[in-house]
């Protein structure tokens, strides 16, 4: 298999703060720069500024379905090459099928299995920094609540 891995930040779109933070941490440890959006509107604004290499999108978002966002991104000249992974706690066979039909490249069920998630992301996107020890940096996002 010779997948061409794209470079650029990974965009995480999820309105649940802890789900977002978990994905950020996993991606950061693996050397990816992460962008975070908690709604479709925020995601679209970020994508207009920077085209990500890969987008992880939750399906249930406060301003609509993440699958509609995936459909739109796959039709835009600037973003149609981006890998889109749907990520949802729905985890039913029907949801996976709907995600793939909407143009998503794959589907990740929550709770996320870290090893499989990393393998999937690294198939499509190349890390842009070497991170082996936890430290600040690598993530651009709004402050998150300390606890829920």
């Amino acid at each position, binding site marked *: 298999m010779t997948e061409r891995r794209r470079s650029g930040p990974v965009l995480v779109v999820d309105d*649940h703060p802890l789900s977002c933070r978990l994905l950020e941490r*996993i991606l950061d440890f693996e050397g990816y720069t992460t962008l975070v959006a908690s709604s479709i509107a925020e995601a679209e604004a970020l994508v207009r500024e920077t085209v990500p290499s890969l987008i992880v999108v939750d399906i249930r978002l406060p301003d609509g379905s993440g699958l509609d966002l995936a459909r739109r991104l796959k039709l835009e000249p600037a973003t149609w090459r981006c890998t889109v992974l749907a990520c949802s*706690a729905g985890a*039913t*066979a029907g949801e996976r099928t709907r995600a793939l039909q909407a143009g998503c490249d794959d589907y990740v069920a929550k*709770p996320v299995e870290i090893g499989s998630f990393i393998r999937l992301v690294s198939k499509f996107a190349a890390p842009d920094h070497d991170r082996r020890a936890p430290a600040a940096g690598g993530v651009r996002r709004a402050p998150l609540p300390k606890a829920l």
Partner: protein
Amino acid sequence: MLGGLLAYCERLTAANRELSRQNGELQRRSELERRLVASVSHELRTPLNAVIGFSELMDGGRTGPVSDVQREHLGIIRTSGQHMLTLVNDMLDQAQVEAGHIRLAPQPVEPAVVVAECISSLERAAAEQKVSIEFDPRPVGISSLDPTRLRQVVLNYLSNAIKFAGRHATVTVRLIREPGRLLIEVVDTGPGIDAADQPRVFEAFTSLSPAPRDGTGLGLAVTKLIVEAQGGQVGVRSTAGAGSTFFAWLPLAPAGRDDPRPSPIAAAVGRGRKASARRAPRPMVARR
């Protein structure tokens, strides 16, 4: 006489209308119930994502050094999270099957490969209980089955046997291919089940063990639903004090090759397996 016939027809039409209304109402309620369970499942899986994910990150040492005591506590958090996830998944499965929403995706698979994967995933649990698992990994032939559902059945039976057979027990997994169907047997050398209790083992929330266990109480009930939804059959043969045999007959989809020739993949997996699964002589006939 004509008047009587007309009145009878009217009563019949009214009864049909009422039946149709009740049927519609039942379907509506079933759909509502399915949506409710799906929604509850979604809401429970979301926080579990954080519980399991962050404890896994810490346990892996990614967030800094972890002491032995901390690792033990993280293990408890992860195991408890996984247990709750199993319960949520079982509830969702049960609701989907009961509402007739089970989706089967048969595809050509080698059942021996699926069983070998299941055994690998439970090796740690078996080692903790000092239970040895025996399995003859030789292929039984590519079969048209839904691998996810087959995996569910094998994992349920096998994890149950590991939990209940007792320390130092032996659990044997057997696969027997017959024309048009596949038999999965999980045989343990545990304490067995009283004859009076056997009809209840596949009922939801039934525990035959006097000691509290960490099962969800739904595993065998869900297994039964999944197998029967495919037109198969489950059962148990057991003698108190002499172990139990849980079995499931699964029909093979007609689209599959009914050809018990070995597949190259399974042969490779069979050659490659060295782990805890000890090779046992292959039974020539199914014990029934």
